C-alpha cells in the first residue's frame, strides 16, 4: 500500500507570507494527525482528525494555524501569516483505528526567513 505522502517536501517562505502543507493519508485511514518538530525541540502533537472532524486540536499553537480535512480524505495545514518560530518539520500521520500504530509521512521542512 502507498504510505502517507506529504507535499511539498521543503518550503521556504518569508515572514508574513502564507504556506499550505498537504497530507495524503493511507487510503482507508480515518484517523489523521499533524505533528511538528521546531528547531531543537521534540516532536509535538498538533491535532487529530477522525474523518473530516477535528477530534483534538489541543496542540495547535495559535490561530495562525488552520487545519482542514474536507471530505475526510487529504488534509491541509495552513500557516497565515508565517512567523520565524514556525520553522521546523511538519509531520502528518494516519492510522486505521484509534488504537492502531501511526504511519508517518516524511514531513515537510518549513523555513521562514
Amino acid at each position: 500500500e502507498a504510505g502517507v505522502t506529504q507535499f511539498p517536501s521543503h518550503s521556504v517562505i518569508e515572514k508574513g507570507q502564507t504556506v499550505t502543507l498537504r497530507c495524503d493519508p493511507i487510503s482507508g485511514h480515518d484517523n489523521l494527525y499533524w505533528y511538528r518538530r521546531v528547531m531543537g525541540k521534540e516532536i509535538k502533537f498538533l491535532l487529530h482528525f477522525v474523518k473530516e472532524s477535528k477530534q483534538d486540536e489541543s496542540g495547535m499553537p495559535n490561530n495562525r494555524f488552520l487545519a482542514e480535512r474536507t471530505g475526510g480524505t487529504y488534509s491541509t495545514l495552513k500557516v497565515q501569516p508565517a512567523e520565524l518560530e514556525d520553522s521546523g518539520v511538519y509531520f502528518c500521520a494516519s492510522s486505521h483505528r484509534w488504537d492502531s500504530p501511526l504511519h508517518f509521512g516524511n514531513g515537510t521542512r518549513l523555513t521562514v526567513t
Partner: protein
Amino acid sequence: LAKTTQPISMDSYEGQEVNITCSHNNIATNDYITWYQQFPSQGPRFIIQGYKTKVTNEVASLFIPADRKSSTLSLPRVSLSDTAVYYCLVGDMRRNQGGKLIFGQGTELSVKP
C-alpha cells in the same frame, strides 16, 4: 501524561544485541508502551507496542516488568542500517487519545562496523 526517560545515545557494533531501556515511572493504567524508529529526513516508523510482559515481532522484542515503570527494547544482531533514533512513547489507550503521542528526545543509536 506519563513522561519517558531514555539514554541520549548508545553505540554498538554490527551483529551485537542492543537493549535500550526506557523509564516511565508515572505510567497510568490506560497507558501502553510504543517504540518508534526514525531515520534522518524521514518520519518516525512504528517498531513495536506492548502493555505488559513480553512482546516479540520480526524486528524486535519489548520487555515490560510487572510494575510497568520501565521497558526495554531489544534489537537482535543489529546492522549498520539500524543506526537511527529510537523513541519510547507512552500513550493513553482510551478512544480519543490513542494517537496523541508524547515524544521525548529519543536515543540515538550508532552501529559501527
